[in-house]
């Protein structure tokens, strides 16, 4: 198995189709990267407060705050990037636009810039994440940067290339000026080996297809593709290729074995139906796995966490990611 991301990677962008658990994967990755004393920033950009819900905390403000301790003493900070705040911060930093900033707000220009001009909003969101990546450490002796890594819970696969490809987006709109320069600076970080875009999927037809399309689009845009994170992988209770094993004859043998437990023939039959469905599902999953392998990117499987995701489940997923990274390192 190859390395899931390059060692110099510091900006991890996690995308995925809706319903595949992209926020969960991003949070688990942040925990994994913080393991053993690291400091990692987990950012969200869609105003969904998904991180707060996942960690069961109050909604995140526009402020970096500690939300979890990683195994071995690392720490994960979280930030919900709000485009309006990011724009005002940006204006303040570069232009000291005190009065004009207020005027902008009053006349709906902030709304305009952050909601309507699509490239603008994306530049602000990715720009803030890149700023965190480049920020140097004032309070961390021995460390070059404020954060060892930044993990972004990014927009879904269908929109990710457009979201990250801010340069092209903005180039069509703003041909000169600070936004254009900012977009170029952001693009330099995004296309460097410092960045990896990971795609979260589950082993089903539509998400896998969308993942493969996403990989193609990212590559075509010159954006570095990282790992494919296969989420919610179910435990196989029957060996694949054993579909024949739930044949009528097998069902009879099973019925005989289960009778002492008070399970009658009808119930055994219902179990066998469940088994056949399971085997069918496993076969389909195998097809999807092969399709994903065909993308030529490292694939990391994350187990299905029974009973829903809680903090314990996140640590379990983080361990799976650390293990994958460690195997990749050794190979």
């Amino acid at each position, binding site marked *: 198995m190859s390395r899931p991301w390059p060692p110099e990677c510091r900006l991890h962008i996690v995308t995925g*189709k*809706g*319903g*595949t658990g992209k926020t969960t994967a991003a949070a688990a990755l942040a925990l994994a990267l913080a393991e053993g004393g690291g400091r990692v920033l987990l950012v969200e950009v*869609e105003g969904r407060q998904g991180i707060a*819900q996942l960690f069961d905390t109050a909604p995140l403000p526009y402020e970096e705050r500690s939300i979890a301790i990683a195994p071995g003493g690392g720490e994960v900070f979280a930030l919900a990037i709000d485009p309006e705040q990011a724009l005002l911060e940006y*204006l303040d930093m570069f*232009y000291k636009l005190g*009065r*004009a*900033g207020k*005027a*902008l707000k009053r*006349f*709906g*220009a902030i*709304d305009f810039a952050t*909601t*309507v*001009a*699509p*490239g603008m909003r994306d530049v602000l969101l990715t720009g803030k994440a890149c700023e965190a990546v480049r920020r140097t450490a004032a309070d961390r002796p021995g460390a070059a940067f404020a954060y060892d890594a930044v993990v972004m819970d990014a*927009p*879904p696969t*269908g929109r990710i290339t*457009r979201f990250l490809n801010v340069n092209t*987006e903005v180039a*069509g*709109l*703003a*041909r*000169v*000026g*600070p*936004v254009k320069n900012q977009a170029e600076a952001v693009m330099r970080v995004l296309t460097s080996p410092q960045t990896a875009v990971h795609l979260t999927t589950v082993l089903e*037809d*539509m998400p896998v*297809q969308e993942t493969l399309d996403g990989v193609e689009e990212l590559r075509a845009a010159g954006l570095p593709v990282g790992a494919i994170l296969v989420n919610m992988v179910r435990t196989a*209770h*029957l060996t694949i290729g054993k579909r024949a*094993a*739930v044949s009528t004859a097998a069902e009879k*043998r*099973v019925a005989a*074995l*289960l009778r002492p*437990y008070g399970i009658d023939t009808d*119930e055994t039959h219902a*179990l*066998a*139906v*469940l*088994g056949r*469905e*399971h085997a*069918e*599902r496993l076969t*389909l999953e195998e097809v999807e796995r092969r399709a994903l392998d065909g993308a030529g990117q490292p694939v990391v499987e994350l187990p299905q966490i*029974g009973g*829903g995701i809680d903090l314990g489940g996140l640590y379990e997923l983080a361990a799976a990611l650390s293990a994958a990274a460690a195997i990749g390192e050794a190979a």
Partner: protein
Amino acid sequence: MSGTPKRLDVDGLLTDPATSIIVCCGSGGVGKTTVAAALALRAAEQGRDVVVLTIDPARRLAQSLGLTELDNNPREVEGVQGAGRLFAMMLDMQRTFDEIVENHADPERIEQILQNPFYQSLSAGFSGTQEYMAMEKLGQLRRTGEETGSWDLIIVDTPPSRSALDFLDAPNRLGSFLDGKLIKVLMAPAKAGGGFALKVLASGFSIATMALNKLLGSGLLHDVQTFVGALESMFGGFRQRAEETYQLLQAEGTAFLVVAAPEPDALREAAYFTERLAAENMPLAGLILNRVHPVTVPELSAEKALAAAEELDADSADPRLAAGLLRLHAERVRLAARERRLAERFTASQPGVAVAEIPAQSGDIHDLDGLRLAGDLLAG
């Protein structure tokens, strides 16, 4: 009683001739498109003339409806078994927007608008454009249905927004942007020439535009001004149509179905949406709970199954299959219990919402038979 919700009478809704629009909404990844298609097929096979508007269908699902490419016009679906007819279409957002421009702008300005880089970016990328265009298309389908009599029931799938609420908010957002103060500011120079522009120069307006110019570069602002100038003739139209569609959604004959999977995020979204519909006086017909996992041997508890599996592991001659089936069952029992708890929490917080369930299928739905089966399961 909180544990047993009212059952949603799917067939009653579909066959009632008064039902003329059904909107399927919910958060992304819950199977909205499949549900919309299954409902449409079922309605057609029960005698209705139906058109289904899909937004972003999976490739194979689209193929099953005979949709091989983005096509902004409904096409009749082959293989419907029954008295009714089924038409299907996939929304082409860009095309729909272009058509609005072509139909409503001054003829000499059409090209100017279509070629404007700001228009191109807005029509392809604005986060609410897809929602707005879906609503626009709904209005068009309604008019076509009335004129040609091709269909009397429209089933709409909604865009895969990050939140189900975007669907209700976005048209308004686009409308208020196009009607907004800023647009008026930006238009001022184009409209009134130098004299008026000089007058505004003294006000806060100019500070805003100057700051924007500084930030975005004057090229962008110029494009916006040109675009807005050219669009001016359509402004009233945008606002008016957004309002008409909004009224259409509140009208009798419209029914909303909220689609959710039995998972915390999807159900939380569904609850928000349910409350929002009530607040907007929009008629909610019920909740469709998709991909529910049924327990097939209810008498066998998870604990008992696991204990038996362990015993079989220890001393049976052919243990693997029997023990595997028991473990599978135990896993299913636990999953089903969790789904039940989540569904009950929803029902307790939203009493009176009728619910229909679709059991999870082992494979993806990619043909009419699959849609028909989903429809059968949905109707119970």
